């Protein structure tokens, strides 16, 4: 049963610390998305990659957030330095070409910044 995996599932950290979240897309999926979900803003698209190349990161605060895809099996989202307003659930999703843009979501990383 192919699934998107995310680590860690939960992260509690203090303001100013670096946070790295990881995502393993489904094997063969070549497009990866990062979303943030909060009660106030709902589901927001932060960035996405196709064939490991960044396509759009306009939803991401540039000064503290960075997203990379070092290889086809790993996507990372880093926050440095973290702030309390970054507290949210971060989801990764992936899809493959010719799939009518059907995305498969991971279980999310719940981040709490104190």
């Amino acid at each position: 049963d192919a699934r998107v995996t995310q680590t860690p599932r939960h992260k509690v950290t203090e303001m100013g610390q670096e946070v790295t979240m990881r995502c393993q897309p489904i094997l063969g999926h070549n497009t990866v998305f990062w979303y943030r979900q909060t009660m106030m803003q709902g589901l927001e698209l932060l960035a996405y990659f196709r064939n490991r190349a960044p396509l759009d990161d306009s939803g991401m605060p540039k000064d503290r957030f960075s997203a990379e895809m070092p290889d086809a099996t790993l996507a990372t989202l880093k926050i440095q330095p973290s702030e309390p307003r970054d507290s949210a659930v971060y989801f990764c999703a992936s899809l493959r070409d010719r799939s009518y843009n059907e995305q498969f979501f991971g279980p999310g990383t719940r981040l709490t910044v104190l």
Partner: protein
Amino acid sequence: AQSVTQLDSQVPVFEEAPVELRCNYSSSVSVYLFWYVQYPNQGLQLLLKYLSGSTLVKGINGFEAEFNKSQTSFHLRKPSVHISDTAEYFCAVTISGGYQKVTFGIGTKLQVIP
């Protein structure tokens, strides 16, 4: 650019009663439409999708949706809900053909009352 509007943020309904969750979209070109469900503390998973052809689409867990091009709607229905249907439901739209990012609605919380 495409957009999607979910008209109800919360819908309470008694167990075994029917339910309809409303979704309207906006796009100047052909679209694909999706409904995703998010159970507590989980990622989003696909309920059903409309790509083309028959306007009545059946999905998992007894849900169905009807694509209405003239009213630009894609409402989700279930004739008899169960407690386990308590979740948040997201309508989503993408431009058909080729690779396009997906735009999600703000979500509708379905609360099934025993």
